[in-house]
C-alpha cells in the first residue's frame, strides 16, 4: 500500500484518481435513484457527499462498493474493478443498517474488520486481536471492549464502526453518516481521526448532513441529488448556487452567516 502513499502537499492536478465512476445508473425499482453519475475522486482528499434525504448518497457508496449492482456504468478503484482492489477499501455503513441487539461485544465487531484479509475459514488470532485493540484505543473505546454492543450509546456504536474500518488499514475509506446521532465530543474525536487519515495520504469519503461544518471539516465536496450536481474543492464550489441546485430551496442566507 505504501506505493500509493502521497504527500498532502501534492497538487491535486498531479494526483492519481482513487475512485472513478463512469455513467453510473442505479435503480431499486423502475425509477433510477442515481442517474448517469460521473465522478472522479483524487487520492488524498477528505470529501463530503451532500444532498437531501433520499438523494442516493448511501446508494452511491453501495454501488461503488459492489453491494448493489448498477443498471449501467462502471466503477474503478485506482484504475481497476472493485473486486481486485477490495483490500484498499474500507467501509463504515450507516449505523442504523445493523441490529445493535445482536449478541456480540464491541471487540468482536471491530475484529470483523480483519476478516477480509483473513479470507474464508481462517480464524482471527493474536495479531488480529492486537490490531483490533489498537483501533479501539484510537477511537477511545478500549475500556468498552467487552461491552455488549446494545449497551453502548449511539456515539459509542459509531466509534466502534469507525474502529472496525480502521482495522482494515485501507487506502480509501467510505463512511455513511459517521456523525449521525453523536455528541459534540465524539464528533470532534471522529473528525480528528479523519484528518489524521488524510494526513497519512488516505482518501476519505463521507456522507455528511451538517452543511455548516463542511468548509471546516472537508477540502473536497460532491453535491448529489439523483444526478451529480457538482464535485470539486470546497473553496471553489461550495456556494449558494450549488446548494440551491441540490436542495431546491433558496440558500442565499446560508453557511457564511
Amino acid at each position, binding site marked *: 500500500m505504501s506505493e500509493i502513499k502521497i504527500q498532502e502537499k501534492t497538487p491535486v492536478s498531479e494526483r492519481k484518481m482513487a475512485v472513478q465512476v463512469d455513467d453510473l445508473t442505479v435503480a*431499486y*425499482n423502475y425509477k433510477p435513484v442515481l442517474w448517469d453519475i460521473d465522478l472522479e475522486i483524487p487520492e488524498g482528499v477528505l470529501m463530503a457527499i451532500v444532498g437531501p434525504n433520499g438523494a442516493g448518497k448511501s446508494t452511491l457508496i*453501495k454501488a461503488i*462498493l*459492489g*453491494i448493489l449492482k448498477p443498471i449501467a456504468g462502471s466503477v474503478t478503484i485506482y484504475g481497476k474493478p472493485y*473486486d481486485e482492489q*477490495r483490500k484498499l*477499501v474500507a*467501509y463504515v*455503513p450507516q449505523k442504523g*443498517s*445493523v*441490529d445493535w441487539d*445482536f*449478541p*456480540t*461485544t464491541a471487540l*468482536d*465487531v471491530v475484529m*470483523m474488520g480483519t*476478516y*477480509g484479509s*483473513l*479470507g*474464508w*475459514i*481462517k*480464524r*482471527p488470532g493474536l495479531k488480529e486481536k492486537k490490531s483490533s485493540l489498537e483501533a479501539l484505543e484510537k477511537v477511545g473505546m478500549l475500556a468498552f471492549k467487552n461491552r*455488549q454492543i*446494545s449497551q453502548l450509546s449511539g456515539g459509542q456504536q459509531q466509534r466502534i464502526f469507525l474502529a472496525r474500518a480502521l482495522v482494515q488499514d485501507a487506502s480509501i475509506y467510505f463512511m455513511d453518516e459517521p456523525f449521525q446521532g453523536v455528541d459534540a465530543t465524539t464528533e470532534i474525536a471522529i473528525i480528528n481521526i479523519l484528518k489524521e487519515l488524510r494526513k497519512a495520504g488516505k482518501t476519505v469519503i463521507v456522507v455528511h448532513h451538517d452543511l455548516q461544518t463542511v468548509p471546516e471539516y472537508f477540502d473536497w465536496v460532491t453535491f448529489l441529488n439523483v444526478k451529480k450536481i457538482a464535485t470539486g474543492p470546497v473553496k471553489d464550489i461550495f456556494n449558494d448556487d450549488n446548494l440551491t441546485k441540490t436542495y431546491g430551496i433558496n440558500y442565499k442566507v446560508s453557511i457564511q452567516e
Partner: protein
Amino acid sequence: MDIQEYFSLVFSDYTLRTITLGTAILGAVTGMLGSFAVLRKQSLLGDAISHAALPGIAIAFLITGSKDTNTLLIGALISGLIGTFWIRGIVTKTHLKSDTALGLILSLFFGFGMLLLTFIQKQPNANQAGLDKYLFGQAATLVEKDVWLMAIITGLCLFVLLFFWKEFKLFLFDADYAKTLGFNTNFIDILITSFIVLAIVLGLQTVGVVLMSAMLLAPAAAARQWTNSLSKMVFLAAIFGAFSGVFGTAISASQNNLSTGPVIVIVASVFVVISFIFSPSRGLLFRQIRFIANRRDLEQQKTLAFMYHIAETHDNISHPHTIKILNNFQGYTRKTLQKLVDKGYVTLDGTMWSLTEKGFETAANLYNQQALKDE
C-alpha cells in the same frame, strides 16, 4: 406409566430409547439452526419451509407408492428447497417484502399439499392411510435408522457451523459489510438456509408440518434471553431444544393419549415463557425489580445530595440539622432517611440529623459518577 417410570424405562426399553434419542437430537439441531433464523428476524421462514414440504411428501407417495419415511422425506426436502428458493427469487426479482413472499409460498404449497392429500385419501387402495401423520407428526413411528439419519445430519451441521463460524457471524450481523470484504454472501445464505430446510424436513415425521416452525424458533428465542454471546446462544438453544424433546416425550409417554409433537412444542414454549420472565438481564421480572431498585436508589441519592448541600455550608460537615429542613425537599421520606442511616451515611439524634464522613464523601462522589455515566 408415570414420569418416574418413564425415566427408569428410557434406558432399557428399546422403543422408548429410540424415540427419546430422536426427539432430543431433533430438538438440538433445530435449536442450533433456529438461532440463525431468530437473529435474521425470519420468524416465518420455518413455517414457510415446513408447509412447502407437504406437497413433496404427497408427490413422492404418488410416484413411488411407498410409505417408506426416507422416500417421503426426500420428496419433502425437494419441495421444501424449491419453495425456499422461490421465496429468495421472489424477493430479489420483484419488490415484494420477504414476509409477503414467505406467506405467499407458504399458503400456495400448503394448499397444494392438502389438495394432494385429499386426492390420495380418496384413492381406492388402502395403502394411503397415514400420510396425514406428517401434519402433526407421530414420534412413535421413529425407528433406529431415522435416529441415525438425524444424528448424521446433526453432526454434519455442527461441522459446517464450526467451519464457517466466522463467516456466519459476520453475515448475520452485517451482510453488506461481509460483501464488501469479499465474502460471497449468497453462498453463506444458501448454506444456512439449506441446513434449516434439512433440519425442518427431518422433524416432519416427529413434530409435523404445522408445528415445526415452533421447534425452530422457541429454543432460540429462549436462549437469546440468557446470553449476549452468539456461541453461547447457539449452544443454549441446542440444549433447550434437546430438553424439550426429552421432556415432551416423557410427558406424552406417561399420558397415554397425548401425541408427542404438540407436547414437545408446549415444553419448548414453557422454556420461552420462563426465559422471557426470569432472565437476569433481559427478563421482565428483573427489569421491573431493577427499575424499582433504581428509583429507590435515586430517591436516596437525591436526599443525600440535598443534605450534602446543607452540610457544605458548615465548617463541620457533621453539624446536626433538624429533620424539618428536609421537609422542604420534595421526594424525601422517612424510609429513605432510615435507609441512609442503615448505610452509615447519616446519624439520627432525636429530631436532628447529621452527615457522617462516609456520607459526605459518597455525596461528593455522586456528582463525579453522574458525570461519568452521562459520558
